C-alpha cells in the first residue's frame, strides 16, 4: 500500500502510517529499530532496496531523507516536504517513508525525522554517499545510536579514513569495515590453527579501496607488527600474507569469491570469501548496535602509519623506497623478500 503526500508535515505522515497499517490489517507491529537513510535522488533507489532486503532480518521503519537540489533562486527560498508512505509487501517487513525535502526545510531535516522515529527503539543513520565530516555532530547523526558511513563511495577514500579517525565518536561505523568481517574471521581462524609469532604482514588489494587500509590497520593494531599495503588490480582485496615464526600464512583471493588459505606445513584449502552485497552488509551492521571498539581501535592506528607501496608490489619488490617511519621499514622489506618463495609454494 502506498500513500502519496505533497506539501505535508510529519504529523500528517504519522497519520498516514497509522491509516496504512489499519488498511492492511496489522495494527501492531514488531519493528525493532528506525533506519534513517540520508541520500540523494540518484542513490535512493539502491539504498532503499538494500534496506528493504535487510529488513527481513531486522524489521524496521525506514525513513529515506532525500534533499532535493533547487535550480532557481526562487525555489531555494520556498520550502516544501513531500512524502511517500509505503506499508505492507512493498516495504519489506516494516514500513517505509520516502521524504523529499525542497528549499529551506532540507537544512532542517532533523525536525521532520524526529517525530517519525519509533518510540523507544534504537535509531540508525546511514549515509550511502556524501557522509558528513563529523557524523556524530550532524543534526541527523545526533539522533542516532549508530551512524553508518561508507568511505568506499568517497572521492578520496584514504583521506576520508583519516577524517573518520579524527571525528570518531562511539557508535560510528563504516561499511568498508563491515565488508572485511569474513576476511578478519578467516585470518583469526588461521591463527587459531598455528601457534606462532607473526613478524610482518602484507595486505594486497585494489587502489582506492579503504577496506584494504582498514584490514591492514586492524592487523597492525592487533599484531603490533609492521604492515605493508600493496596494490593490485583487484577485485577488492586480493591477498593477505603473514610472515610468522612457523612459516608464511597466505590468504589469497584472485577472483572475488573463492580464496585459498595456505599455511606452511598444511595443505592449501579453498575458502568461500564472496564479496557481499549491500543488503547483507546493512543486515550485519544492524545486528549489533553497541559501539564497535575494535573498529575504533583499528581506525585510531592511523592510515598514514601503513607502509603503502605505490606501484604493484610484485613488479619491482626491491626498488621500493618511500618515506615511512623507521621502525616499520626494515622488517617489512625483509618480509616481502621472504614471501616470494612462499607465494610459489602456495600456487602449487
Amino acid at each position, binding site marked *: 500500500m502506498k500513500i502519496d503526500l505533497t506539501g505535508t508535515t510529519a504529523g500528517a505522515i504519522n497519520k498516514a502510517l497509522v491509516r496504512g497499517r489499519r488498511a492492511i490489517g496489522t495494527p501492531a507491529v514488531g519493528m525493532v529499530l528506525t533506519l534513517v537513510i540520508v541520500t540523494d535522488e540518484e542513490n535512493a533507489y539502491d539504498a532503499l532496496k538494500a534496506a528493504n532486503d535487510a529488513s527481513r532480518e531486522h*524489521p524496521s521503519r525506514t525513513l529515506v531523507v532525500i534533499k532535493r537540489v533547487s535550480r532557481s533562486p526562487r525555489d531555494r527560498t520556498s520550502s516544501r516536504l513531500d512524502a511517500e508512505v509505503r506499508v505492507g509487501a512493498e516495504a519489506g517487513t516494516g514500513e517505509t517513508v520516502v521524504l523529499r525535502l525542497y528549499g529551506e526545510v532540507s537544512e532542517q531535516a532533523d525536525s521532520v525525522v524526529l517525530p517519525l522515529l519509533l518510540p523507544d527503539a534504537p535509531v540508525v543513520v546511514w549515509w550511502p554517499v556524501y557522509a558528513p565530516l563529523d557524523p556524530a555532530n550532524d543534526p541527523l547523526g545526533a539522533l542516532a545510536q549508530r551512524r553508518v558511513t561508507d568511505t568506499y563511495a568517497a572521492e578520496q577514500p584514504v583521506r576520508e579514513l583519516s577524517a573518520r579517525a579524527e571525528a570518531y565518536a562511539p557508535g560510528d561505523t563504516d561499511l568498508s569495515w563491515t565488508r572485511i568481517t569474513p576476511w*578478519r574471521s578467516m585470518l583469526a581462524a588461521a591463527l587459531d590453527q598455528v601457534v606462532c609469532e607473526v613478524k610482518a604482514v602484507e595486505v594486497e588489494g585494489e587502489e582506492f579501496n579503504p577496506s584494504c587500509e582498514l584490514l591492514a590497520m586492524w592487523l597492525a593494531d592487533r599484531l603490533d607488527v609492521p604492515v605493508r599495503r600493496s596494490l593490485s588490480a583487484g577485485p577488492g582485496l586480493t591477498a593477505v600474507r603473514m610472515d610468522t615464526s612457523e612459516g608464511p600464512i597466505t590468504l589469497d583471493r584472485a577472483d572475488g569469491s573463492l580464496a585459498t*588459505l595456505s599455511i606452511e606445513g598444511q595443505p592449501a*584449502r*579453498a575458502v*568461500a570469501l564472496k564479496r557481499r552485497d549491500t543488503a547483507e552488509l546493512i543486515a550485519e551492521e544492524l545486528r549489533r548496535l553497541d559501539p564497535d571498539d*575494535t573498529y575504533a581501535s583499528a581506525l585510531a592506528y592511523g592510515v598514514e602509519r601503513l607502509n603503502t607501496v605505490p606501484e604493484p608490489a610484485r613488479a619491482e619488490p626491491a626498488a621500493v623506497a618511500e618515506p615511512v617511519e623507521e621502525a616499520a621499514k626494515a622488517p617489512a622489506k625483509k618480509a616481502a623478500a621472504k614471501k616470494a618463495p612462499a607465494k610459489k609454494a602456495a600456487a602449487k
Partner: protein
Amino acid sequence: MSRLPGSGANPLRDPADRRLPRIAGPSGLVIFGVTGDLSRKKLMPAVYDLANRGLLPPGFSLVGFARREWAHEDFAAEVHDAVKEHSRTPFREEVWQQLIQGMRFVQGTFDDDDAFERLRGTIEELDKAQGTGGNFAFYLSVPPRSFPVVIQQLKKHGLTDQSSGSWRRAVIEKPFGHDLRSAEELNKVVHEVFEPDQVFRIDHYLGKETVQNILALRFANTMFEPIWNRSFVDHVQITMAEDIGVGGRAGYYDGIGAARDVIQNHLLQLMALTAMEEPASFDADALAAEKTKVLGAVRLPKDLGRSTVRGQYAAGWQGGEKVIGYLEEDGIDAKSKTDTFAAIKLGIDNRRWAGVPFYLRTGKRLGRRVTEIAVVFQRAPHSPFDHTATEELGSNAVVIRVQPDEGITVRFGSKVPGTSMEIRDVSMDFAYGESFTESSPEAYERLILDVLLGDANLFPRTEEVELSWQILDPIEEYWDRHGRPAQYKSGTWGPVEADEMLARDGRSWRRP
C-alpha cells in the same frame, strides 16, 4: 611483538570484537546412516548453511558412511541435491566448491571390518589433504539397535583414539533407551569408548531459538522472574502436538509410544528450562546442575490412574483430510496398546513450585502442529469490577511458542471500547520471525556447530536422561498393568479423559 610460540592466545581474537563469529577449529564430520531422511533433510543442509554463513573451518570435511554402492562423486551429487532442496540459505557455487573438496564416501555395513579400515584410511587421508588435524565427530544417525555395534567397531579400528590435542566425539540421537535400565546400558556402551564430555546427545528442541529464549526471557528481564513462582503461577501446560499420524515410523513407534518418544526427552527438557533456578553462569556445567536439580525434584502424583491419560487416535478427519485410525495403520498390530497421546501431571517439590501442577501432553493426529509452553497465572485476588464486567475474563498467561512460528504471547484483560465496563482477554504477540529474523538458524545448524566447538550447553547429559526415565518409568509400568489407551477422534485435541483430568482440578487445557 604479537605472541611467543606456546603462549596460547590468538592476537586476532578479542572478546570485544563482536562481529567475528565463532568458527569451529579444523575438523570433520562422519555421518553413519547418511542415506537416511534426517541426514538428507536436516544434517546436510545444516552443514551447507553453516559453510555459507562462514562458520565452518577451512578444510572442513564431510564423510558419509552407508551400505549403498556410491563413489565419492555420487555422494557429492546426493549432498548437492539435498542442499539445493532443503537448505535455508541460497545456494552459492563458491561455498559448494569449498565443501566439495572435503567430501568422501565410505561404503559398507556396520559389521564390515574392511569398511571401518577404509574409514580410518579416509580420515587419515583427510588429515593430510584437508588439514582436519585428527578432529572428527561421529554422527550416529542409525537405529538404536545398531549403536553398540557401530561404537564397538569405532573402538576396534582405533577410530576413537584421540592423539595429542585432537578430539573424537560421538553424536547420538534419541531415543536414549526405552526405560531407565536400557538407557543405563546404552550409556555404558557409549562411555566405554567415548569420554562422557565427548558424547553429545541431540535433542533438536534445545537448538531452537525460542527454547534458548526461555532463558533470556526469564533471566535477562526483571518483569517475569518475580512472578515466576507458586505465589503467582496457577499451573503450567506444556504441549507438543503433531497433526500427522505414525506414517513410515510404524516399525519404530509401535511399542514405544508418545510418552517415551516425546515426553521423556523434549517435554521434560522444556519443563526443566521453564522451572529451573537461575544458573550461576551459562556454561554447560552450571546449566546441567540446575536442570538436574529440578528434574530430581519432580514428584509423581499418588494416583497415577487419575493424573495420567493415554490415548490412541481413531479414524476421523484431520484438517479436511480423511485419515485412518492407529490400529488400522500399516505395520501396526491391531491389538496394540501403544499410546499416540499421553498427558501427565507432575509436581515439583521445591520452594518455588510446591503445589503448582505441570501438565505435559503430546499426541499425534491432533488439531494442528504446535509446541508451546503456557504459564497460566492465578486470577487477581480481588476485583473492584462487578461480576458481569469480568465474566469473560480468563487467567493471565505467558505462552512461549516453540514451533511453528516461534514467538511469545502474553494474554491479559483489557476494557472493551464502549460505555459500559466490560473486560475481556486480549493477546499481545511477539513473533520471532517478525521481530528478528525471517529464517532463524535451524536447530541442527546450531547443534552441529556446538559439537564441533565442543560446547555442551544445549545437550542433555547422562544424569538428565536417567532422571527423565526415573520420572517416566513408573507411569509406563502403571499403564502396562492397567487398562487400554482411550480412543480419540483424529483431528481433535485428544481423548475426553484428558479434559476430565484437568476438570477434576478445576482447570482446562488451552486450545493452542
